Structures are given as C-alpha cells and as structure tokens.
C-alpha cells in the first residue's frame, strides 16, 4: 500500500510543486479576498481543470470562506476535499466477473494515448492474480503495432493473438475471441488502433469491432476502457463524448501520470460523464499501473501529504 502511494506521490509531486509554490506564495494567514481567489482560480486552470470547473470550485470556496482569516493549509484542504468529493463518485475497483468467461475488455483511445502499453500492464496485473490471460493485437494499422504487443507478450508471458499488417481488425478480433472462448481463458484484452474521435471512417471501424465481439457473446465486451493521455487538455471531453457514441465506454484509464501534466480535466469529466476511473499509468514498466484513488489524486494535486493529514 505504502509503495504505490509513494509512487503516485513522487510523480504527483513533480506536477504539484508549481501549484504548491503558487499557493505558498499566496498567503500565510490573511483575509481571503478576491485577489487570492483569482490566483487560486488560475492555479486550478493551470492544472487543466478547465475554466468552468475552476470557477465553480472557487465560487464554493468564496461562499464559505470569503473575508475570513484563513491559512494556506485550510485552503488547500478545502479545495482538495472538494475535488475528492467529485472524484470519489468515479473511484471504483476494477472487477473481473467470474461468470463471464472470457471476461472481455476492449481498449480504445486516440493515437499515442498509451493503449498498447496499458494493455500490457493490464495483462500483467491479471496474470499476477493467477488468471489465464490472452490479448489481441488489434492495431493492424500502425506499422509494427502488433509486433509491439507481441514483444510485450513475450516479456510478461501472455499469449498474443496477432494478424498480418493490414489485416481487417474485425476479423482478427473474431479469431481472437474464438480462440479465448475455446481455451476458456479468464480474461481477454482487445487492443485497438488509435484513432481520432472525429474521424468518422475509423470510428465506424471501431463500432464494427465492438459488434463482432458482441455477436459472439451478447454480454461482451464486459468493459470498454478509454485510455486518456494525462497531458491532454480540454479535448478529453470530446474524446469521451464521441467514443461513447460509438462504443459503450465503461471506464477510463489515465496514462502517463508520471509526466508533469496534472490531468485536472478528469474532474470535469467525472462531473459530466460519471464514468469510473479505474487505473493510472505511472511509467513504461509492466508494473507501472495503479488503481485510481480519488483522495490521493486530489491531495497530490494540491501538494498535500495524505499521511500528514491522518497524523494530524
């Protein structure tokens, strides 16, 4: 437990130091006036929370604390708790349901978000839970897309279903699902090629892959995970909205949380789409995947130490 939090905190600390500096320079203990509120709002905006969400959070702060003598710690705690409240609604453990065999997980997202690496990490995770795992290298478009996952498969000891470059991904997925069904695998993870959500042709192709899976097991895919890049800005809203129109997105994974980006956009996403956020990617290793924890994320965002909070 301590290990993963330390991991997360280390990566968040790089990102939050700016915020903390910002806040520290703001006040020691003084009256909460408009000037401070404006600066706080900017700090939130700089974390990709978006203008609207930031304004709302600051309005709440203002309504409760305006003109009061307040310390830095209190402001940080207030904002962290407010953000945590929003994110707790989407904090959810990822569950492989035993009754679905294979439990089929479909991965979607824009190019370069981190889908394939996340597929490898998920496979590793399930394998560590002593499940039989298979995955399909559904990215037949990108040069060496399937080779990439194939090499991961060798590294982590998971069977990868591949097809030649340019193979129709839907037919490859059909074959992969058949293979996992006859082998009675516990879990099947389906990787897909990256695509921009406004590219109608490629989105149609994604819909076809989804239907191919559904045809073989009407309860499948059991999870459709949209992978978001932590560095993404407000375009994440469009990604969630448009991918959800084509496939039934059931949850989010935030990749590259070890970057300097704050991924604050997920606060707005949580309010608007209410999709569970299951995991965060924290590096390029197969083990660099953590469950998403709302409180840790929120406290980390504001540079608060959650251990310190409990000790107090």
């Amino acid at each position, binding site marked *: 437990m301590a290990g993963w939090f330390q991991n997360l905190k280390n990566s968040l600390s790089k990102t939050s130091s700016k915020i903390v500096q910002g806040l520290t320079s703001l006040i020691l203990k003084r009256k909460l006036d408009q000037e401070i509120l404006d600066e706080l709002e900017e700090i939130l905006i700089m974390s990709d929370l978006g203008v609207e969400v930031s304004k709302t959070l600051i309005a709440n702060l203002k309504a409760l604390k305006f003109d009061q003598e307040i310390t830095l710690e209190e402001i940080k705690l207030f904002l962290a708790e407010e953000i945590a409240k929003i994110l707790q609604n989407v904090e959810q453990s990822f569950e492989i349901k035993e009754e679905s065999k294979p439990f089929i997980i479909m991965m979607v997202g824009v190019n370069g978000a981190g889908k394939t690496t996340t597929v490898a990490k998920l496979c590793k995770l399930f394998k560590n839970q002593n499940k039989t795992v298979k995955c399909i290298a559904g990215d037949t478009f990108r040069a060496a897309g399937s*080779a990439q996952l194939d090499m991961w498969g060798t590294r982590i000891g998971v069977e990868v279903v591949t097809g030649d470059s340019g193979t129709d991904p839907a037919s490859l997925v059909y074959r992969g699902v058949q293979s996992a069904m006859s082998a009675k695998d516990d879990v099947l993870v389906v990787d897909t090629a990256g695509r921009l959500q406004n590219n109608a042709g490629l989105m149609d192709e994604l819909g076809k892959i989804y239907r191919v899976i559904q045809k073989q097991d009407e309860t499948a895919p059991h999870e459709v995970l949209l992978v978001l890049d932590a560095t993404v800005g407000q375009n994440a809203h469009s990604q969630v909205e448009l991918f959800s129109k084509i496939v039934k997105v059931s949850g989010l994974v935030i990749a590259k949380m070890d970057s300097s980006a*704050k991924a604050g956009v997920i606060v707005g996403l949580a309010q608007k789409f209410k999709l569970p956020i299951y995991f965060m990617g924290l590096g390029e290793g197969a083990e660099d995947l953590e469950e998403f924890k709302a409180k840790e994320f929120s406290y980390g965002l504001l540079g608060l130490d959650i251990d310190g909070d409990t000790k107090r």
Partner: protein
Amino acid sequence: MVKNMFGSLTAKLSSIFSKLRGRGTLSEADVDAALREIRISLLESDVALSVVKTFIAEVKEKAIGAQILSSLSPGHIVVKVVYDHLVEVLGSDSGELKLQGLPAAILMVGLQGSGKTTTTAKLAKRLKEKENKRVLLVSLDIYRPAAQLQLEILGKNIGVDSLSIVEGQKPLDIANRAITQARVGGYDVVIFDTAGRLQLDAELMKELRELQTLISPGETLFVADSLTGQDAVNIAKGFMESVSLTGVVLTRVDGDAKGGAALSMRQVTGCPIKFIGLGEKVDALEPFHPKRIADRILDMGDIVSLVEKTMETVDMASAEAMAKKLQQGGLDLSDFALQLEQMLKMGGLATLMNHMPGMEQIKGQIPAHLMDDKILKRNLAMIRSMTKEERKSPELLNASRKRRIAKGSGTQVQDVNRLLKMYQDMSDATKKFGKLAKLGQLGKLNFLKNGLKGFNPGRMK
C-alpha cells in the same frame, strides 16, 4: 481540416465581437470586456495561462492605441488587432528545413506518443519526393518494443532506406553507425527518430543531449501533440533546457482539439512551427501557415481580410453620396451599377459571402448561378449599354430599347427583363431599409453599410 481544430474558439470569439459590433467608440472598458472573454476562450482552448496573459496584455496595448485610426467600427478594429497579433505570435510561414552538412541531420524529439515516428516517415517522404533527397532513416528508440521495426516498415512503405537494426546496441552507438553508413552510402539527409521521453527524466534527457552533440543536426524538431493541455509550456520548457530546438511539428491537427497548444509551444520555444500533421497517412504533412491558422482561430468569416479589402476598395465619398440617395429613396440604375462594381472589386459575391460571419444559412438560399460573377458582369454590361436617361428612369425602357440594350451588351431581352426585375426588387427592398437593418444577419453587415446599403442578396432570386 484545420478548421475543426480551432472552430470552437472561433464560435466564441464571434459571439464576443457581435457584442462589440456597431458601437461608436471603443473605451478601455470595452476593450477590457472583450479581452476578458477572449482570455476565457483561449484558456478553454488549452492555451497555457502564462501565454494567455502575455497575449492579452499585448493585444490590449495595441487595441487601445489603435482605436481612432479609421472609420470602421471599433469591434472590427479589435478583431483586426487580435488577429494581427495572433499571426505575429504564431510566427512566419514555414515548411523550410535547414539541411546543413553532408549528410544533413535532422533530430526528432518529443514526449511518448506525440507522433515522432509517423512524422519522421512523413518528413522523409517529403524530402524524397519534393526535394529529391536521398534519405536514411534511423531509429534510436531502443526502449519501446518494436519501435525500430515500426520505422523500418514505414521506410519500406515509402521507399526510403533505414539503418539495419542491431539488437542490443545503444542509441549513441547506433547514431555513430548511422553517420558512417550515411557517408559511405552517399545519403543527403539522415533523420534520427528518438524514443519518447518525459522532460522530467534526467537520464534520458542527458542521453538526448549527448545525441545532439554527436550528431550536430541542422534541425532538432520538437514533435508536439495538438491535443496537449496547459502542460504544453512545461514540456516545451523542459526540452528547451536540455537540447536546443530549431522547430516545432504540431501533430493531430486533423483532430477536433481547439489547438491552443500551438500558441503555447510557439511562444515558449520561440521556434517556428514548421509543419503540421494532418492524419495517419504518410503524406499527411503540410507546411505551417500562421495566417491560415489565425484565420481559423478567429474565423470571423475572414472578416479581417474583408475589413482590409473594404478599406482598400470602397470609395467612401461615393458611398456616402449613395447612402444619402438611399435615404431619399432615389436609387437608380447608375447606383446599382456602382454597387455591382464595388462587389466585383471585393472579389465577387461568392467571396463576399465566404467572408461574412453567419452567412452560411443565407448562402444556401441563394441559387448557385447568382453566386457567379459572370452574372454581375453581365448585369453591369447591360446597364452600361443604357443611356443616362434610361438609367435614371428605367420606366422608359420599351421593347425596342430593350432589344437595343440586349444587342449592345451581348445578352437577350429576357436578361434585360431579369435585370429590371432585380432592380425593382431592390428598390422595394430599400424602402424597407429601416426594417432590414434590424434583421439579424444583415445587422452584422453594418460596417459595410456605406458600401452595400440596400443590396439584399436574399431578394435576388
């Protein structure tokens, strides 16, 4: 394509400026109000806060200084100032690569998943086909599984050689081997693709520095994702601090992101944005044109260039005289001809329509043949074939006069009749002018009223 990227910011700015339109003078408060809205729009479009602040401060200074320079409405002057500054900040036209040394080297750097490898292949194809260069591709990405293979396959697809893969070789060694190979093999250009890395990763950034020293490339291109949010500034800064960058390539511009990262990256790096990536195909790479992008960001129906054209072409004195006539309801065919001439000068009706914000709906209602400049020219020819008296009093036009006019202008009598009908409609329209000005779409044309008063394209059917 590019339009998608910046479309939403555009819509917002459009509504902001409609508030400013039609006001007499521009106070500092007006400028502030507009700029507050622009600030929010830019932030929502993912322009980094620090960049937004600088931008707004600079625009404000210019806007307040520029307000009494012309007779155009203040709102349009702000648009122009914002636009001009946007172009300035976005930099100059590009697409040029500095190919120095033999072989010339290009180093591609960026975060994971920003699109380096695809861009590398696109650049190679461009150099090969447009500049007849012999290109060698080299992948220094030993970290991501199959990354080297990816570049090799892309190279094969576009018919460009890539350095053979030696398992287990370190990036610096691969680079050395590539340089030798390129010299021996007589290559003009070597493009080095590198592994994606976080600017926070001290070790990998050190590797990049060493690579740059070894290769001493004429171009070090920072490949950046246009979907990036506020962190764009930190990422760009981090790379700037470790290696010297010479240009930016912005990828996924075919997406629907508002693309504020373009502005952020440009301002932080101070490097030109050289190319934009517009898709997954190997030829989806275009030179960057700041004006085109700024047009899209503002997308005031290219109102800016219309403002410029209006200032150049419309003869203010004659326009004012016409406005007076209009008020008295005394518009004749000579005046009509004058309007047609001015429209032609501004690039014809179709261009005019394209330039107008909010004209999309109206456009659909106008038959295509009327958007044809030939019609404008034909109408002009017919009017020019009339005597002064006929132009003043069209009721004089009997059958024989009409035949003469048709002959003189190379048209048919039906064409003359059509022209007269159009003129009649327009005369009727001018009588309702007071009401027209209040109609939403035409209201937006206020700034052009001196030139186009009373001309209602919607009635030309």
